[in-house]
């Protein structure tokens, strides 16, 4: 019985640039994706993440820099000659071929004999649990099934790198969670190198070993999901991954990498993360803000502007001297009404110093 294996290889970008005429889509980007990892490119639309993915696939040619897959320089190699396959947002199943023919398609061009093609295709469909539907046309499958065919079609080639371009965006919300777990399981059990593009931060946090946040053609931050969420490097990342309140503050002193920060009446001791004294910025997640009675020690005084009940939690808008803050509390029974005076507390692990 044929089994689908992995030929996972790393991907390296060495100062890669992509220009369309005068417009620069990707600027001198350097990155390293280790073999066997799932790395997500995350960012708002137009940030260059899809362009980056297509450059790995060879569907776009870099205008400058070098791209390596494993140790091979593939910068000038067209898509056909790269050992990379891709799952498209639209799945791109060939509508005039059956499921079997779709999965066999790539194998036919890879020099396998007829028997090998059939057994590999079967193994691929087994892997995604669709072996029974091989004779159907793509138009006779549901969206989730089409998606799995697309994955099987890419997997049977045992590519060095597997690319996903927003694979879940055409599925409904429930199915989305299910399919993303399937993708993650496959990736981990086969040890595949996967590059995954999405603009959905929750999806990115859920599936990735590492996330690369991109903004305007450049890497904004690169790290494990937890690092990105808990310690965003700058306001853009803080705001893009989860929501964040960005506040102006002053670093009074720094000692042993611990900064003493004042925020109006509030004094905080935070990791300095390399920053010196002077004005700085602070990012705080809404769920990391505490709501106290006004006057409580070391809190920022404010007035509740809005209270919204959304079932699992309350969403609060609080007007303070530092601007409006967005807070979330799980205590849905708290007696909070618009107009109430409150004090906002900052727990030790909540706020993070960031780059403007």
């Amino acid at each position, binding site marked *: 019985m044929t089994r689908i294996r992995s030929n996972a290889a790393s991907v390296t970008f060495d100062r890669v640039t992509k220009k369309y005429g005068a417009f620069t889509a990707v600027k001198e980007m350097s990155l390293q994706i280790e073999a066997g990892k799932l790395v997500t490119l995350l960012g708002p639309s137009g940030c260059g993440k899809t362009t980056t993915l297509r450059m790995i696939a060879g569907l776009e040619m870099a205008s400058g820099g070098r791209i390596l897959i494993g140790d091979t320089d593939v910068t000038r190699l067209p898509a*056909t*000659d790269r050992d990379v396959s*891709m799952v498209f947002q639209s799945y791109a199943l*060939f*509508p*005039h071929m059956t499921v079997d023919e779709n999965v066999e398609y790539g194998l036919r061009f890879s020099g396998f004999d007829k028997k090998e093609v059939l057994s590999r295709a079967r193994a691929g469909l087994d892997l995604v649990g669709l072996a029974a539907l091989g004779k159907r046309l793509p*138009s006779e499958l549901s969206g989730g099934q089409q998606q799995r065919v697309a994955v099987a079609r890419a997997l049977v080639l045992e590519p060095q790198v597997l690319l996903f371009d927003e694979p879940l965006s055409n599925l409904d919300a429930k199915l989305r969670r299910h399919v993303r777990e399937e993708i993650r399981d496959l990736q981990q059990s086969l040890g595949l190198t996967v590059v995954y593009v999405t603009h959905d931060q929750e999806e990115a946090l859920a599936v990735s070993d590492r996330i690369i946040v991109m903004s305007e053609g450049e890497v904004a931050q690169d790290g494990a999901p937890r690092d990105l969420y808990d310690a965003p490097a700058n306001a853009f990342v803080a705001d893009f991954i989860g929501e964040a309140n960005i506040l102006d503050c002053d670093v009074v002193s720094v000692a042993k990498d611990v900064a003493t920060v004042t925020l109006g009446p509030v004094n905080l001791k935070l990791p300095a993360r390399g920053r010196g004294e002077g004005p700085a910025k602070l990012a705080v997640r809404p769920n990391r803000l505490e709501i106290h009675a006004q006057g409580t020690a070391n809190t920022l005084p404010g007035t509740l502007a809005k209270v919204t009940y959304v079932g699992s939690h309350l969403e609060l808008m609080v007007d303070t001297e530092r601007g409006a803050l967005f807070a979330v509390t799980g205590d849905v029974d708290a007696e909070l009404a618009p107009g109430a005076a409150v004090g906002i507390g900052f727990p030790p692990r909540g706020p993070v110093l960031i780059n403007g």
Partner: protein
Amino acid sequence: MLVGWAGFAVLPWYGLDRGLFSAWMLGGYPLKASTAPALFLNLQGLKLWLAPMGVLLLLPLALWGRRKSDPLFGPALIAIGAAGLAWLALQGFGIGLRGFQWDWLTALFGELDDRQFGMGWGALLVAGSFLFLLTLGIAARGAIGGDEFVVGSIGFVIAVVAVFIFMPILQMLASALIDQDGNYSLSIFLSKLFSARLWSLDCVTGGSRCGVAWNSLVLAVLVGVLTTLLGLVFALVLTRTGFRYGRVLRALTVLPIITPPFVIGLAIILLFGLSGAVTQTLDSVFGLPASRWVYGLPGLLIAQLLAFTPIAFLVLIGVVEGVSPSMEEASQTLRADRWQTFWNVTLPLMRPGLANAFLLGFIESMADFGNPLVLGGNFDVLSTEIFFAIVGAQYDQAQAAVLAIVLLFFTLGAFWAQRFWLGRKSYTTVSGKGDSGVHPHLPDGLKFGVYAVAGFWTLFTLVVYATIFYGSFVTLWGVDFSLTLSHYVKAFAVGWNEFGIHWRGAAWSSFFTTLQIALVSALPTAAIGLLTAYLLVRQRFAGKNAFEFGTMLSFAIPGTVIGVSYVIAFNVPPIELTGTGIILVVSFIFRNMPVGVRAGVASMSQIDKSLDESSLTLGASSWQSFRTVILPLLRPAILAALVYSFVRAMTAISAIIFLVSARYDMSTSYIVARVENNEYGIAIAYSTVLIAVMLAVIGIMQLVVGTRRIGRRGIDLSQSRTNVSASGPAPAMGAGG
């Protein structure tokens, strides 16, 4: 990688094909100068100027074994290819200009063909292999992702367009400068260009006739405006009034595709001419004297309106349907009533479609040759003037060229003005997403007006076609209305003799020639058209806009101009084709190419690009993707392109009339010749047969296309509404004028 190596291995083989191909074709062919390949000519010490090409062709062998990433590989191939092509062109034109004797020259170059050929198959293959060496070199340097197939295709399309569209036009321009004695003369050119015959304004000030150029321009503008209005009326009836018999109206759009253009003119004569049915009825009932009013502007206008309105309809129907209903619904929810919505939203959104329809009507009218010939009377237009300059007693090529330049100036001017006018604005009302909603109906007043005009015109059209059909059975129209089959017998009699079926009818020879040529030209037309469409839709490359403009240009060039320029350019080496069937095929290919391109572009934009991208990432080369993914999905478009190019080739007249020869006579030119001899009966009978044949062809195609198997989801995005692209004219489905 495998494909790359295969392409590489083929390389030096190209280099040898001159020798191989000839040997393979001819076996132990003689060493005679007229049939020997260039290699043997050289070995015998003849035609030594061909030798450098042989040497150049051997050079790629030196690259054997090198990988294509080798930095030498690309530039070397580019140098070899470019040098080879340059040398080929140089010796081709150079020897002609040095004034060698013509027959000696043909003896020099004619290699395989005993007809009077300039460059033969050998030269063609050599040119082809140089071209592909060149494009391989460019691909190896990394252009378009190093894709040999795509670069090669671009090179091929550019080369054929350059040779068969631009070169003839340029040669025609050059010949306009030559006087009767063969000297260059600017003053004669200018005096011809600005002659009173062309530009006189006498008729405005009371004189008898205006300049030919003015006649053409006035007629074309009138036809353009009126066909657009009528087309719009029909489109509105179909889409905005809840009209139930839309299928009948849509059937009207088939008419211009299957009708040779001058047939309408014939019918007009049968109805309104001196001995026409209507004229005689009026004469006998009301005592109105028969007059020749129909010969001239009025008759021409009616005939061309009848002939070209369906084309405008075809364009506008897509446009009217393309206006997103949600726009109109939004307008209505913003308190605009139906009139205001129509006037402020619907009509402005249709602007590019209206411009396209006008352009089509304008160009078709300018290019129309058959109707003015039949109906023109003293109202001369450019296209007939060109014909008489070449065919008439004067035989003045330069005069024809000057007239063609004026004609070309008008049509290209309109083409350019349209692109400029629509230039930067986007009229696409909807993106790819499907759009629900219903088009609002027209306000009542407009609705009845529109019904009245459309009803009258439909009736008129039906009368015209009935006249054609009936006329084919009438002994002598206007004199003897008794029914007879004699016209059909004369044209299409079939008998038996000792060899089997004997095609006795006078029309059979031209009928078979037409069928044969139309069939032969259909395949390359569709192939080049679809290949070009693929490059335009799917590939990005430098100069793509110029590329698109170049390929669509032949649409804006009237058939008469193509005809004249082909006569001028291909009468002499290096490419000598006049009098052959090949020149007819070639002219059809490049006249009808825009139809194939547009059909391909339209259906290819409906196939999601990620399909071929996923094929590429699955390891298929771009050629394999094209063959296994795109072509099967395009099957309906391919069939349509084949049938339309076939049908258009059957009905074309304007370019053909210059290019036919005794041996290769075409139906249309045969019919026009009958008309000139006043043998209306045969002409009409023949036309009726042509219309019937083409109806059958189209019907069969509809049946075949109608039953395709592919599931709806995924490719059938035709439901999504997008406006007609503003970048170029819609396909000219009508007969070639």
